[in-house]
Protein backbone atom coordinates (compact mmCIF):
# COMPACT_ATOMS: atom_id res chain seq x y z
CA UNK A 1 0.00 0.00 0.00
CA UNK A 2 1.58 3.31 -1.02
CA UNK A 3 1.65 6.56 0.92
CA UNK A 4 -1.27 8.34 -0.78
CA UNK A 5 -3.49 5.32 -0.34
CA UNK A 6 -2.62 5.16 3.38
CA UNK A 7 -3.34 8.85 3.65
CA UNK A 8 -6.72 8.40 2.04
CA UNK A 9 -7.56 5.56 4.41
CA UNK A 10 -6.54 7.64 7.41
CA UNK A 11 -8.68 10.55 6.21
CA UNK A 12 -11.62 8.24 5.76
CA UNK A 13 -11.33 6.97 9.30
CA UNK A 14 -11.49 10.47 10.77
CA UNK A 15 -14.84 10.87 12.49
CA UNK A 16 -16.17 14.35 13.15
CA UNK A 17 -17.33 14.74 16.77
CA UNK A 18 -19.85 17.37 15.66
CA UNK A 19 -21.48 14.89 13.29
CA UNK A 20 -21.50 12.19 15.97
CA UNK A 21 -23.24 14.63 18.33
CA UNK A 22 -25.89 15.49 15.74
CA UNK A 23 -26.55 11.85 14.81
CA UNK A 24 -26.79 10.93 18.49
CA UNK A 25 -29.29 13.74 19.04
CA UNK A 26 -31.41 12.45 16.13
CA UNK A 27 -31.16 8.90 17.53
CA UNK A 28 -32.30 9.96 21.00
CA UNK A 29 -35.12 12.10 19.58
CA UNK A 30 -36.35 9.18 17.50
CA UNK A 31 -36.29 6.80 20.50
CA UNK A 32 -38.24 9.39 22.42
CA UNK A 33 -36.59 8.95 25.82
CA UNK A 34 -33.39 10.46 27.13
CA UNK A 35 -31.63 7.61 28.94
CA UNK A 36 -27.96 6.68 29.39
CA UNK A 37 -28.50 3.53 27.34
CA UNK A 38 -30.04 5.49 24.46
CA UNK A 39 -27.22 8.01 24.42
CA UNK A 40 -24.55 5.29 24.50
CA UNK A 41 -26.11 3.18 21.75
CA UNK A 42 -26.62 6.41 19.79
CA UNK A 43 -22.92 7.29 20.02
CA UNK A 44 -21.87 3.74 19.11
CA UNK A 45 -24.16 3.56 16.08
CA UNK A 46 -23.18 7.07 14.94
CA UNK A 47 -19.45 6.23 15.06
CA UNK A 48 -20.07 2.85 13.43
CA UNK A 49 -22.05 4.46 10.63
CA UNK A 50 -19.48 7.18 9.99
CA UNK A 51 -16.66 4.60 9.87
CA UNK A 52 -18.49 2.14 7.64
CA UNK A 53 -20.19 4.71 5.38
CA UNK A 54 -17.86 7.70 5.35
CA UNK A 55 -19.03 10.94 3.75
CA UNK A 56 -16.92 12.31 0.96
CA UNK A 57 -14.52 14.82 2.49
CA UNK A 58 -15.96 18.35 2.39
CA UNK A 59 -13.72 20.69 0.44
CA UNK A 60 -15.79 23.82 0.92
CA UNK A 61 -15.96 25.75 4.14
CA UNK A 62 -18.79 27.79 5.55
CA UNK A 63 -18.43 30.71 7.89
CA UNK A 64 -21.12 31.38 10.47
CA UNK A 65 -21.59 35.07 10.92
CA UNK A 66 -23.99 35.76 13.82
CA UNK A 67 -25.44 39.03 12.52
CA UNK A 68 -25.82 37.84 8.97
CA UNK A 69 -27.31 34.59 10.23
CA UNK A 70 -29.88 36.33 12.45
CA UNK A 71 -30.85 38.60 9.56
CA UNK A 72 -31.11 35.65 7.19
CA UNK A 73 -33.25 33.57 9.58
CA UNK A 74 -35.64 36.44 10.38
CA UNK A 75 -36.01 37.38 6.74
CA UNK A 76 -36.46 33.70 5.84
CA UNK A 77 -39.32 33.32 8.31
CA UNK A 78 -40.97 36.51 7.07
CA UNK A 79 -40.52 35.58 3.41
CA UNK A 80 -41.89 32.10 4.06
CA UNK A 81 -45.10 33.56 5.47
CA UNK A 82 -45.44 36.16 2.69
CA UNK A 83 -44.73 33.75 -0.17
CA UNK A 84 -46.99 31.06 1.33
CA UNK A 85 -49.88 33.49 1.59
CA UNK A 86 -49.23 34.73 -1.93
CA UNK A 87 -49.24 31.22 -3.42
CA UNK A 88 -52.32 30.37 -1.32
CA UNK A 89 -54.06 33.43 -2.75
CA UNK A 90 -53.01 32.63 -6.33
CA UNK A 91 -54.19 29.06 -5.89
CA UNK A 92 -57.56 29.70 -4.30
CA UNK A 93 -58.80 32.97 -5.82
CA UNK A 94 -61.51 32.10 -8.35
CA UNK A 95 -60.87 33.18 -11.90
CA UNK A 96 -57.62 33.67 -13.74
CA UNK A 97 -54.63 31.57 -12.74
CA UNK A 98 -51.21 33.24 -12.67
CA UNK A 99 -49.00 33.22 -15.76
CA UNK A 100 -45.38 32.38 -15.18
CA UNK A 101 -41.88 32.90 -16.53
CA UNK A 102 -38.56 31.09 -16.59
CA UNK A 103 -35.78 33.58 -15.88
CA UNK A 104 -32.00 33.42 -15.98
CA UNK A 105 -30.35 35.13 -13.01
CA UNK A 106 -26.58 35.50 -12.77
CA UNK A 107 -24.92 35.26 -9.39
CA UNK A 108 -21.39 35.85 -8.22
CA UNK A 109 -19.40 32.61 -8.24
CA UNK A 110 -19.52 30.69 -4.97
CA UNK A 111 -18.53 27.35 -3.51
CA UNK A 112 -20.69 24.27 -4.13
CA UNK A 113 -21.81 24.14 -0.53
CA UNK A 114 -22.90 27.79 -0.52
CA UNK A 115 -24.64 27.33 -3.88
CA UNK A 116 -26.54 24.38 -2.41
CA UNK A 117 -27.73 26.49 0.51
CA UNK A 118 -28.73 29.29 -1.86
CA UNK A 119 -30.80 26.93 -4.01
CA UNK A 120 -32.44 25.37 -0.93
CA UNK A 121 -33.50 28.79 0.33
CA UNK A 122 -34.63 29.92 -3.14
CA UNK A 123 -36.94 26.94 -3.59
CA UNK A 124 -38.91 27.85 -0.50
CA UNK A 125 -38.71 31.57 -1.11
CA UNK A 126 -39.91 34.39 -3.03
CA UNK A 127 -42.13 32.76 -5.60
CA UNK A 128 -39.34 30.88 -7.33
CA UNK A 129 -38.21 27.33 -8.01
CA UNK A 130 -34.74 26.67 -9.38
CA UNK A 131 -35.05 24.34 -12.34
CA UNK A 132 -31.55 24.51 -13.80
CA UNK A 133 -28.11 25.56 -12.61
CA UNK A 134 -25.43 26.67 -15.04
CA UNK A 135 -22.05 26.33 -13.35
CA UNK A 136 -19.63 28.82 -14.73
CA UNK A 137 -18.36 32.30 -14.18
CA UNK A 138 -20.76 33.77 -13.26
CA UNK A 139 -23.09 31.05 -12.04
CA UNK A 140 -26.49 31.21 -13.72
CA UNK A 141 -29.64 30.02 -12.02
CA UNK A 142 -32.74 29.38 -14.08
CA UNK A 143 -35.80 29.95 -11.98
CA UNK A 144 -39.49 29.35 -12.53
CA UNK A 145 -41.24 32.45 -11.21
CA UNK A 146 -44.92 32.05 -10.36
CA UNK A 147 -47.05 35.00 -11.45
CA UNK A 148 -44.20 36.90 -13.18
CA UNK A 149 -46.27 38.05 -16.15
CA UNK A 150 -45.30 41.71 -16.59
CA UNK A 151 -41.86 43.32 -17.08
CA UNK A 152 -42.19 44.86 -13.60
CA UNK A 153 -43.01 41.51 -11.99
CA UNK A 154 -40.12 39.86 -13.87
CA UNK A 155 -37.70 42.53 -12.63
CA UNK A 156 -39.02 42.17 -9.07
CA UNK A 157 -38.55 38.37 -9.21
CA UNK A 158 -34.95 38.85 -10.37
CA UNK A 159 -34.21 41.36 -7.63
CA UNK A 160 -35.68 39.05 -4.98
CA UNK A 161 -33.38 36.22 -6.10
CA UNK A 162 -30.27 38.42 -6.12
CA UNK A 163 -31.11 39.80 -2.66
CA UNK A 164 -31.77 36.40 -1.14
CA UNK A 165 -28.49 35.09 -2.58
CA UNK A 166 -26.70 38.07 -1.04
CA UNK A 167 -28.28 37.33 2.36
CA UNK A 168 -27.13 33.70 2.17
CA UNK A 169 -23.58 34.90 1.51
CA UNK A 170 -23.93 37.38 4.38
CA UNK A 171 -24.89 34.55 6.74
CA UNK A 172 -22.63 31.68 5.63
CA UNK A 173 -20.07 33.11 3.21
CA UNK A 174 -16.34 32.98 3.82
CA UNK A 175 -14.23 36.03 3.12
CA UNK A 176 -13.64 34.87 -0.46
CA UNK A 177 -17.38 34.50 -1.06
CA UNK A 178 -18.05 37.96 0.27
CA UNK A 179 -15.30 39.45 -1.92
CA UNK A 180 -17.06 37.91 -4.95
CA UNK A 181 -20.32 39.50 -3.86
CA UNK A 182 -18.81 42.95 -3.74
CA UNK A 183 -17.47 42.70 -7.27
CA UNK A 184 -19.97 44.94 -9.11
CA UNK A 185 -19.29 43.32 -12.48
CA UNK A 186 -20.69 40.02 -11.24
CA UNK A 187 -23.21 40.62 -8.51
CA UNK A 188 -26.41 41.79 -10.15
CA UNK A 189 -26.14 41.41 -13.90
CA UNK A 190 -29.13 39.93 -15.59
CA UNK A 191 -28.58 38.56 -19.09
CA UNK A 192 -32.22 38.68 -20.13
CA UNK A 193 -32.46 42.44 -19.90
CA UNK A 194 -29.99 43.12 -22.65
CA UNK A 195 -31.69 43.96 -25.95
Amino acid at each position, binding site marked *: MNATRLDAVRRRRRVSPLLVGWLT*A*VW*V*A*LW*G*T*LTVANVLTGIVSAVLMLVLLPLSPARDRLAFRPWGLARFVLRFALD*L*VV*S*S*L*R*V*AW*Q*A*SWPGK*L*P*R*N*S*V*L*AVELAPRSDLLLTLT*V*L*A*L*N*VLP*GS*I*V*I*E*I*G*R*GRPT*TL*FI*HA*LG*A*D*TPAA*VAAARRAVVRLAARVVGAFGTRADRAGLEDPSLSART*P*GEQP
Partner: protein
Amino acid sequence: MRAGEFADGAAVGCLLAGCALAFVAGVGLSRFPDTLSRMHTVAKPQVLGLLLVTLGLGLRLRSGIDVGMLVMVAFFQLTTVPVATHLVGHAVYRLPHLPTGDLVVDELADRPDPAG
Protein backbone atom coordinates in the same frame (compact mmCIF):
# COMPACT_ATOMS: atom_id res chain seq x y z
CA MET B 1 -52.46 27.89 34.86
CA ARG B 2 -52.88 31.07 32.86
CA ALA B 3 -49.70 30.49 30.88
CA GLY B 4 -50.90 26.97 30.05
CA GLU B 5 -54.25 28.25 28.83
CA PHE B 6 -52.54 30.86 26.70
CA ALA B 7 -50.28 28.20 25.15
CA ASP B 8 -53.32 26.02 24.44
CA GLY B 9 -55.07 28.93 22.73
CA ALA B 10 -51.99 29.66 20.61
CA ALA B 11 -51.77 25.95 19.78
CA VAL B 12 -55.36 25.96 18.49
CA GLY B 13 -54.60 28.99 16.31
CA CYS B 14 -51.43 27.40 14.89
CA LEU B 15 -53.14 24.07 14.17
CA LEU B 16 -56.10 25.72 12.42
CA ALA B 17 -53.87 28.02 10.35
CA GLY B 18 -51.57 25.11 9.46
CA CYS B 19 -54.49 22.94 8.36
CA ALA B 20 -55.94 25.80 6.30
CA LEU B 21 -52.61 26.28 4.49
CA ALA B 22 -52.28 22.54 3.84
CA PHE B 23 -55.82 22.57 2.43
CA VAL B 24 -55.06 25.52 0.16
CA ALA B 25 -51.89 23.73 -1.00
CA GLY B 26 -54.13 20.84 -2.01
CA VAL B 27 -56.48 23.21 -3.86
CA GLY B 28 -53.51 24.69 -5.72
CA LEU B 29 -52.26 21.24 -6.59
CA SER B 30 -55.50 20.46 -8.36
CA ARG B 31 -56.16 23.90 -9.86
CA PHE B 32 -52.77 24.83 -11.32
CA PRO B 33 -52.50 23.67 -14.91
CA ASP B 34 -48.86 22.52 -15.07
CA THR B 35 -46.35 20.66 -12.94
CA LEU B 36 -43.97 23.59 -12.44
CA SER B 37 -46.74 25.76 -10.96
CA ARG B 38 -47.89 22.88 -8.79
CA MET B 39 -44.43 22.58 -7.28
CA HIS B 40 -44.86 26.09 -5.84
CA THR B 41 -47.79 24.95 -3.70
CA VAL B 42 -45.73 21.99 -2.48
CA ALA B 43 -42.75 24.20 -1.66
CA LYS B 44 -44.48 27.08 0.13
CA PRO B 45 -47.98 26.83 1.70
CA GLN B 46 -47.45 23.14 2.42
CA VAL B 47 -44.14 23.75 4.22
CA LEU B 48 -45.49 26.65 6.28
CA GLY B 49 -48.64 24.65 7.04
CA LEU B 50 -46.61 21.75 8.37
CA LEU B 51 -44.37 24.08 10.39
CA LEU B 52 -47.47 25.68 11.96
CA VAL B 53 -48.91 22.26 12.81
CA THR B 54 -45.64 21.20 14.48
CA LEU B 55 -45.54 24.52 16.35
CA GLY B 56 -49.13 24.00 17.51
CA LEU B 57 -48.34 20.46 18.65
CA GLY B 58 -45.25 21.67 20.51
CA LEU B 59 -47.28 24.35 22.31
CA ARG B 60 -49.85 21.75 23.38
CA LEU B 61 -47.54 18.85 24.29
CA ARG B 62 -44.88 20.99 26.04
CA SER B 63 -42.52 18.15 26.91
CA GLY B 64 -38.84 18.21 26.00
CA ILE B 65 -38.65 14.98 24.08
CA ASP B 66 -41.79 15.63 22.02
CA VAL B 67 -40.49 19.07 21.13
CA GLY B 68 -37.19 17.44 20.07
CA MET B 69 -39.05 15.13 17.72
CA LEU B 70 -41.09 18.04 16.28
CA VAL B 71 -37.91 20.05 15.71
CA MET B 72 -36.55 17.09 13.72
CA VAL B 73 -39.74 16.99 11.62
CA ALA B 74 -39.46 20.72 10.88
CA PHE B 75 -35.73 20.52 10.13
CA PHE B 76 -36.02 17.61 7.70
CA GLN B 77 -39.06 19.18 6.05
CA LEU B 78 -37.14 22.41 5.42
CA THR B 79 -34.10 20.59 4.03
CA THR B 80 -35.76 17.90 1.91
CA VAL B 81 -38.74 19.67 0.32
CA PRO B 82 -36.59 22.19 -1.63
CA VAL B 83 -34.46 19.34 -2.99
CA ALA B 84 -37.55 17.43 -4.09
CA THR B 85 -39.11 20.48 -5.79
CA HIS B 86 -35.84 21.27 -7.56
CA LEU B 87 -35.47 17.69 -8.82
CA VAL B 88 -39.06 17.49 -10.06
CA GLY B 89 -38.85 20.94 -11.70
CA HIS B 90 -35.53 20.07 -13.32
CA ALA B 91 -36.83 16.76 -14.66
CA VAL B 92 -40.13 18.22 -15.92
CA TYR B 93 -38.56 21.10 -17.83
CA ARG B 94 -36.40 18.71 -19.87
CA LEU B 95 -39.25 16.37 -20.79
CA PRO B 96 -40.13 16.76 -24.47
CA HIS B 97 -43.88 16.19 -24.44
CA LEU B 98 -44.95 17.52 -21.08
CA PRO B 99 -46.49 20.99 -21.03
CA THR B 100 -44.51 23.45 -18.93
CA GLY B 101 -47.47 25.81 -18.96
CA ASP B 102 -48.00 29.12 -20.62
CA LEU B 103 -44.70 30.92 -20.04
CA VAL B 104 -44.55 34.69 -20.55
CA VAL B 105 -40.75 34.81 -20.64
CA ASP B 106 -38.56 31.74 -21.10
CA GLU B 107 -34.84 32.44 -20.95
CA LEU B 108 -33.90 28.78 -20.75
CA ALA B 109 -35.68 27.69 -23.94
CA ASP B 110 -33.08 28.90 -26.44
CA ARG B 111 -30.06 27.72 -24.46
CA PRO B 112 -28.37 24.39 -24.82
CA ASP B 113 -28.47 22.23 -21.68
CA PRO B 114 -26.11 24.15 -19.37
CA ALA B 115 -25.29 21.03 -17.38
CA GLY B 116 -24.20 19.06 -20.41
